């Protein structure tokens, strides 16, 4: 036990003490922000940077050209008195100073068709701009033709957007739950497990291979059992993962608190929300409604189950990685063994994506019970109340499989770490297990 603690401590310190760990831990959230910010920024630059397009509008009705308003991107110029037959000539005469010509035909009210001509490509953004502007104008025109006074206002008054709120009956009374918030949470949790298992699995494998290439491994296993070394490694690296997660949670809490107080929604209480209270909430900001929904999720069991699945999934995959890593001499040789494992993880991830749409479907249920996919898939289902028997069955299977895999991996590891030279094959691995 004492030796195991020593090995865990060494493994932990050897990673946490590295500069790259501090860099990664602080860099990852920044990287995420960057990944989210970059598309927005690029789109902005794209719009901002492009030249204003010159578009001629040939309005045969004479009524709709005014509906197209020029802005930074498009400059609409109405041309009168021309007909369709010389539009091409007109375009050519402009010598490239025109980007497109819109022709609004005389019968547009009945057909609802407008044409754009251009030698270049017509962007989807331009098409939708024109469609929205002309549709609105034609609609208003149709309404006006009916001759009913104030009809536009009547329609506006009659218009409703139905907001479907899901209220869950639970022991604590009625609780508003949000499908979107639950889906988001499920996706986030499954992504975290997926990424951690892959990242830390790879880290363990590299650590195993490094000990082999360093030739330290025989020195160490002459002082402890190979199983202790493998287990110490798995636990040590796992603790690194938990440390990293704790740092991120603290960072997130700090950022959340700062952002929350800045938006003035820091004082929302996560109390049960009755329909009456909801009615009152109407005039609260939309932001607060979302916050209420996010707060209404019952986090305690989710966090507990998350940790259980995290530990089980991590143990399962990291011991697989440790066992496979022990069979190779160089990181470059490892791909033949890791490819199948990564494939299984990918299947789990895709299954998780599918299950987000229908968290109670048969794929979701089966994949959340099968041990290799359950850590990722169950996370997606978790915010949607999974039956207890399914959770228990899934956890029991996960942990018993994880222990079985750890045992098998230990048998491979015991032989693998002393195996140099000739590349091991899957056949060798099976022989070693025997």
């Amino acid at each position, binding site marked *: 036990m004492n*030796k195991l603690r*020593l090995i865990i401590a*060494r493994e932990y310190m050897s990673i946490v003490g590295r500069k790259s760990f501090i860099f990664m831990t602080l860099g990852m959230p920044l990287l995420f922000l960057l990944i989210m910010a970059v598309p927005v920024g690029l789109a902005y630059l794209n719009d901002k940077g492009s030249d204003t397009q010159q578009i001629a509008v040939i309005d045969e009705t004479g009524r709709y050209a005014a509906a197209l308003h020029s802005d930074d991107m498009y400059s609409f110029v109405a041309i009168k008195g021309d007909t369709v037959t010389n539009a091409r000539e007109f375009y050519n005469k402009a010598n490239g100073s025109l980007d497109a010509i819109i022709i609004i035909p005389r019968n547009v009210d009945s057909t609802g068709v407008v044409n754009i001509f251009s030698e270049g490509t017509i962007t989807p953004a331009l098409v939708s701009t024109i469609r929205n502007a002309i549709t609105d104008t034609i609609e208003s025109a149709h309404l006006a033709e009916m001759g009913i006074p104030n009809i536009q206002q009547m329609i506006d008054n009659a218009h409703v957007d139905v907001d479907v709120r899901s209220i869950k009956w639970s022991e604590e009374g009625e609780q508003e739950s949000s499908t979107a918030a639950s889906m988001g949470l499920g996706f986030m949790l499954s992504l975290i497990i997926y990424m951690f298992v892959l990242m830390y699995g790879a880290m363990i494998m590299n650590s195993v291979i490094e000990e082999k290439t360093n*030739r330290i491994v*025989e*020195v160490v296993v002459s002082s402890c059992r190979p199983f202790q070394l493998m287990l110490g490694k798995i636990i040590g690296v796992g603790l690194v993962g938990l440390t990293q997660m704790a740092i991120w949670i603290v960072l997130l809490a700090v950022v959340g608190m700062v952002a929350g107080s800045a938006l003035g929604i820091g004082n929302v209480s996560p109390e049960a929300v009755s329909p009456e209270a909801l009615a009152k909430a109407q005039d609260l900001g939309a932001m607060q409604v979302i916050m209420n929904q996010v707060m209404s999720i019952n986090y305690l069991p989710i966090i507990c189950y998350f940790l259980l699945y995290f530990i089980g999934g991590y143990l399962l995959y990291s011991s697989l990685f440790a066992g496979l890593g022990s069979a190779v001499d160089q990181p470059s040789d490892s791909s033949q063994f890791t490819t199948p494992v990564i494939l299984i993880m990918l299947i789990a991830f895709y299954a998780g994506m599918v299950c987000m749409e229908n968290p109670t479907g048969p794929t979701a249920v089966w994949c959340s019970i099968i041990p290799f996919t359950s850590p990722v898939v169950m996370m997606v289902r978790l915010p949607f109340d999974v039956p207890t028997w399914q959770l228990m069955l899934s956890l029991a299977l996960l942990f018993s499989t994880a222990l079985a895999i750890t045992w098998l991996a230990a048998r491979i590891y015991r032989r693998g770490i*002393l195996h140099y030279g000739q590349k091991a094959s899957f056949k060798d691995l099976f022989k070693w297990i025997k």
Partner: protein
Amino acid sequence: MAYLDINNVVKRYEGHTALDGVSMQVEQGCIYGLLGPNGAGKSTLIRIINRILAADEGTVTLNGKAMTDDDIAHIGYLPEERGLYKKMKVGDHIVYLGRLKGMTKADAVASMHWWLDRFNLKEWENKKVENLSKGMQQKVQFIGTVIHRPPLLIFDEPFSGFDPVNAEQLKAEILALRDQGSTILFSTHNMASVEEVCQQITLLNHSHVVLTGSVDEVKQQHKKNIIAVQTPDTIAANPDLFTLLPPDPVKKADTRIKLAAGVQVRDAINWLNEHYFLTGFSEVLPSMNEIFIETVKSKNVENNE
């Protein structure tokens, strides 16, 4: 009973037997050479003693008791394939290895300082291992092996990777440890070092013990009754007593004679002394290297037949 008693050990792998009924007795306080060509089974035997591998049959007893996992605290093992964590600090690394062997932190730190001082590595204590030269890393490795003062030390090819100066220092340390009471098992195919330090040897070949005994005994057993005679005269052969051999390729000045069967050294020398002017003579004992090669080759021939 011997300090380390290996009795009829068998180890099988898929397809071949690495050790086939190997027995070996190592007395306390001696330096014991475990010899053999590559693939003879030396490393497997050593790993069994270290409890890295388990024997399929046979027993290993230490100090009269069957070995258990707790006994590895009493062994210091320097494997042939050895290395260190490159990113660890020298001092931390040595302490880690000591504590893995069951030392308390304070003991390990004190012992680490003592050894670093002895090897003039004091100023490297807080440097990372990767910043050390190869020779210094080997010394750190040696310290890591002996830090817990084990009564049984096992060195697998200890001198590989050492330059002659450092090898000499290492040899002196090994002898010093022996003098302090440690028993040392020494695996090598560097026969010169065997003759210098080992008292007893066992030669393994093809998973079997083919030769065992004290270095002197083994040499006596393998002597070919050859005498090197120093004389300015030219000696003629005397078929009753001896035949002449071609001169030694290295010491050309000596005349080498091979005694006829049953002839005592004294008789031959007396006869020579009467007939020639002798300045000196010595019995030529085979080197361990010759015995090694001869034994291994003859056994291989037997095996092939």
